[in-house]
């Protein structure tokens, strides 16, 4: 028997893995079945995959609760951030008002032409 290269070994590993996960159809599924039928070590490989997938799925189905600290931290950060946004907006508008007042006080603003709709 010719030695199987690493690349080829990975391909077989992945093919049988995909078969065990029920992801192969048609010709590809038949090829994987043939491999499993022909070689007992591939049959054991397929069984091993099936066991591993069950374990992963069992672990995945277990209920995981996030620590309360995560929720509290996220909400606290959002409140601080929202406060900072509002404070920034408030200070921005306050600053603009003071600047407007200063400009007015120093007489730097060009007089507005007021129109009453009576023409020039």
């Amino acid at each position: 028997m010719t030695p199987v290269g690493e690349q080829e070994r990975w391909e077989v590993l992945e093919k049988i893995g995909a078969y065990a996960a029920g992801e192969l159809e048609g010709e590809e599924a038949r090829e994987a079945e043939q491999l499993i039928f022909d070689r007992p070590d591939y049959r054991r490989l397929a069984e091993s995959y099936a066991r591993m997938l069950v374990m992963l799925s069992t672990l995945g189905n277990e209920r995981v609760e996030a620590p309360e600290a995560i929720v509290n931290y996220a909400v606290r950060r959002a409140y601080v951030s929202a406060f900072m946004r509002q404070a920034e907006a408030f200070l921005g508008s306050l600053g603009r008002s003071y600047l407007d007042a200063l400009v007015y006080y120093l007489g730097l603003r060009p007089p507005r032409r007021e129109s009453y709709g009576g023409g020039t």
Partner: protein
Amino acid sequence: MNVEDRDLVARASRGDVEAFSKLVRANSSLVYRVALRVLGSEEAQDASQEVWIRVWRNIRGFRGESAFSTWLYRITVNTCLSVRQKESRREGWEYGGEEIPYLPEPPGGDADPEAAALSAERREEIEAALERVRAEHRAALVLRHMEGLSYAEIAEVLGVPDGTAKGWVSRGRAAMLVALAEADSDRNAKGSAE
């Protein structure tokens, strides 16, 4: 996304902290669960907190083109992968063995999900084996076989074509089995030596 979630997302994107807090409470277990699987218990909490900071910062940009959960998965996985990249740019461990990996059925028969919950020892082995899978492949594997996402969803979450998502899941599956089989054979070798 149901109407209530859509409303919460819309309100949160306008800066409503109450709505954001409800979203966090409703989805905190999803974020923590994925971080736990991808990073392990030591880093899961910090990564989850970082995820929620990113969600709050970016929720204004969420346009509802994908489901909120898909968007949340994407931020979670990206955060986890960036934590891994920051730590070390190590290459994922690859299989170079000659033998076909084999995972024997444990005496308790935990291959049957109805029969028993996973033993603490088995859980530790799974977590340790996951650690040995390259980060992107591990994320894809977690999304597929622990979160039950379709390949189209995984591709969207990871921002890669469908074929790449399939390849990453496949490689992750193979690497995980090899790692588990090695752990099992190490355990047996230790057991027989004692």
